[in-house]
């Protein structure tokens, strides 16, 4: 699998901290909404990122294929 791209929609984030707890190297929760750690938005494929997208209570985390832009997570 190719590289992935991760994003947090800060407008729908509810600050649950799930992302930062599951993947602290990729997400931070400082202030009211989470964000992607600087420079970490493009990453190697990693199962935990799909877990993050799936378990975000606000579906605020999206994982896409870096090349095709296909949405990989949250998984259906």
């Amino acid at each position, binding site marked *: 699998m190719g590289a992935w791209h991760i994003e947090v929609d800060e*407008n729908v984030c*509810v*600050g*649950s*901290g*799930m992302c930062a*707890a*599951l993947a602290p190297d990729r997400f931070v*929760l400082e202030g*009211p909404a989470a964000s992607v750690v600087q420079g970490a938005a493009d990453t190697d494929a990693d*199962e935990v990122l799909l*877990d993050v997208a*799936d*378990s*975000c*209570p*606000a*579906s605020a985390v999206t994982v896409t294929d870096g090349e095709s832009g296909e949405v990989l997570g*949250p*998984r*259906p």
Partner: protein
Amino acid sequence: MLGPPGATQSAQGRTALPVTTGNPPSATFPWERPLTSTTPPTSTSLSLPAPVPYPFNEQGDGLGLHAAYADAREGAGMVRVRLPHGEPAWLATRYEDARFVLGDLRFSRAMALENDEPRYNAARSKPSILSMDPPDHTRLRTLVSRAFTRHQVEGLRPWVRELTSGLLDEMVAAGSPADLVENFALPLPVQVICELLGVPASDRGQFRVWSDALLSTTRLTEDELKENQDQLTGYLAGYVAERRADPRDDLMSGLIEARDAKDRLSEEELVSLCVAILVAGHETTASQIPNFVWTLLEQPEEWQRLVDDPELVPGAVEELMRYIPLGAGAAFPRYAKEDVEVGGVLVRRGEAVVVSLGSANRDPARFDEPETLRFDRPANQHLGFGHGVHHCLGAQLARMELQEALRALVTKVPGLRIAGEPEWKRQMLVRAPRVLPVGW
């Protein structure tokens, strides 16, 4: 007596930082000082304001928000309160403070189990997902949340649309007037949750009895409450065993299967999680449906707006979630793991904080004209589903159910009206009509 705090609130709060002298000495009852506070207190921080009785609202008096909340928001913000049972607590009334307490990991839910937690029931609460802290909570939540994503929920929408439409057809066929709660609001979430868990239709009536009992505040004795809890737990334990032996395509089987790289749910966690899902997802949704209808029919031009344009329904659901103070009072206390300043008040390590979502949602510092229903409110980040790690697991499901319920009502019975006095629930954690007679 549940009197308003009014004048007794003048000396609220310890100022957190530059300490001013001259705070009036408050009565120092032994139960005002948690024994767990080990940090040496400064001289003035010893004087905690005397707690006022809580909840402010009388039971069974509709959906209003007691004036004491607005007083508190404008005044001290953080108020010392005493719930019917357990130790006193701080009550957070402002949006900013509420969100802060719910979102900050220095506040613990797990510590509530080890303390005399402020509560409405004599009985102590049982360990559940809502009484766990990260990282234990994170593990459990990750395992279960896969079943509750927006995607999963959208998959259920067509089925729920049919269900709402069918329930209304039956209600209409039986003739006006009818009780909206019995005929529509209750069967909907019960069926959805039982469908999700795979609970057979024949057992669904019994679920309502158990769920009611578990949410009751003082109606039942401690023994009766425990008996109901045990019965439900027993039922679910048997059910888990059954599904383990014979997996199906339902949430229960999915939870039994659910595992991450390291482990899976223990038997006890599974049962407790199902109890949480049942109780949390059933009464709340069943209460919000009549609450929505009551609120809209009290402001008929808002109801008409939805009849004219059902596309407004999703925005209306968010706004009604903000506007309606569902809880009879703030519940589920958080304990400070260390000294934390909240809204200018120093909360000492070991002290409890309860958060009023209803008050936060009407905070004029966060929402323009908070007392006005506005379906197009921009960035409506209300706290109706909570905030932080315990943000409602079923929020997407509840939204979908409420949207479908409201859409079905405004499209199928646009002439809906209140046809008699509602009977309000008493002694429950959530407020709603128990009976709501409607005509059309």
